[in-house]
């Protein structure tokens, strides 16, 4: 079956610096892949590349059947990226934000409500302006927007950061649910224990390249 993500020797450049220096990776449908590695290794760039935000300088990259070398934009509507920023509007309420993002894909109010509930954003939080939320609550709102958008490929950059234990449990449950429903998930995280139990596969990103991780612990 056609892999959801297929990268072959991808080089990507940001401001003259090669953030990815020959990365190769294949991810199948329904997998939850953990990307681990030191800071600056290229995890964020790898995720952004798969979202169609970083141009491919060299190599081949096909995500969800879309050739990223030919056209970056086609893949974007099917992908959900949660990066370091949340992509939220501070002056709007939680419900407004999730509603807006859901509306961009034509989600029904019921689906939007469901998305908010799946991230524990109950009726108490719904009318609160995002600017007044804590970092963790903002993170959950961003994730709810992702759920509302029904993405086929979830790209999460340090999603557990800023969440308390309950929030993290909810996140894991949401991710497992998404994978079970047919989405594919790629998570970059330093939370090795938690993400490790969540993931079906672990890879190491270092020096702008991707290496499989030997279950025995070495590389």
């Amino acid at each position, binding site marked *: 079956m056609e892999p959801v993500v297929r990268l072959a020797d991808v080089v990507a450049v940001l401001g003259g610096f*090669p953030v990815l220096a*020959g990365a190769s990776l294949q991810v199948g449908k329904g997998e939850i892949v953990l990307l681990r590695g030191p800071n600056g290794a290229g995890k964020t760039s790898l995720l952004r590349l798969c979202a169609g935000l970083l141009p491919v300088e060299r190599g081949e990259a096909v995500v969800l059947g879309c050739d990223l070398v030919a056209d970056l934009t086609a893949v974007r509507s099917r992908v959900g990226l949660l990066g370091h920023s949340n992509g939220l509007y501070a002056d709007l309420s939680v419900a407004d934000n999730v509603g807006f993002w859901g509306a961009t894909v034509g989600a029904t109010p019921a689906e939007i409500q469901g998305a908010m509930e799946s991230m524990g954003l109950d009726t108490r939080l719904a009318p609160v302006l995002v600017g007044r939320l804590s970092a963790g609550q903002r993170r959950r709102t961003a994730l709810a927007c992702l759920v509302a958008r029904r993405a086929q490929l979830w790209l999460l950059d340090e999603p557990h950061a800023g969440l308390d234990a309950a929030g993290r449990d909810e996140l894991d449950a949401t991710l497992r649910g998404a994978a079970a429903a047919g989405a594919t998930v790629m998570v970059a995280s330093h939370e090795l224990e938690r993400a490790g139990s969540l993931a079906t596969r672990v890879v190491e990103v270092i020096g*702008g390249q991707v290496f499989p991780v030997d279950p025995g612990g070495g590389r």
Partner: protein
Amino acid sequence: MTPTEFGPTGIKCPTRTRFSRALGLAALVGIAWLALFGLVLSPDDRVQREGVRILYVHVPSAWLAYLAFVVTGLASAAYLFPKTRSLTWDRIAGASAEVGVLFMGITLVSGSLWGHISWGTYWTWDSRLTTTAFLFVTYIGYLAVRGLGGSQQQRARRSAVVALLALLEVPLVHFSVKWWRPLHQGESVAEKELEGLMLFSLFVGIIAFTLLYVWLVLHRQRVLAMEDSLADRGLDTALAERRQEALPR
């Protein structure tokens, strides 16, 4: 002499060729010719006497400025069309813009001086002068956008779009200024009677400046190509260093 290739971009830059040398020589001869005719051989104007000689710089500069602008627009369009997409067009657009800004500056200054000699004012709000001033500022904005950074493709696409928007803008500005201040009598260069040797000198000027323009753009475009290919080579080195990070210590 064979064209030289640069790095993985494989650009052929045939500027150190016999053609460009001949071109440079022709431009030099043309300028000398212009100086001869403009400063010595052509007669004084009945009214303005020596002052009219500024025209021999002003008119060719203006012609050049607009030519450069059109070339930038065409090269930008050529870049945006998928069939003709090539970074060479982007570099030509950039080189032409740089040369164009220079000559626009010369046009404005020489025009201002001529205005002072003819009518005692350094500036008039006629449509040609104002549109040229507007174009000057627009060009500076275009060059600023070129300097925004990012990959060569991003730079090329962004500046190509800005150049084409500017192209759309020019007729609007021209007409709005023209309706705003209709030309007054006697203030138009075209209405000036130029005949015989004076007209000929003007044509010499236009030809000489055009040769100069082509030569400048050719060489400037080459420098830009070399800068780009240097950046690419820099990438290879940077890539190698980056990959070093992955090796077991």
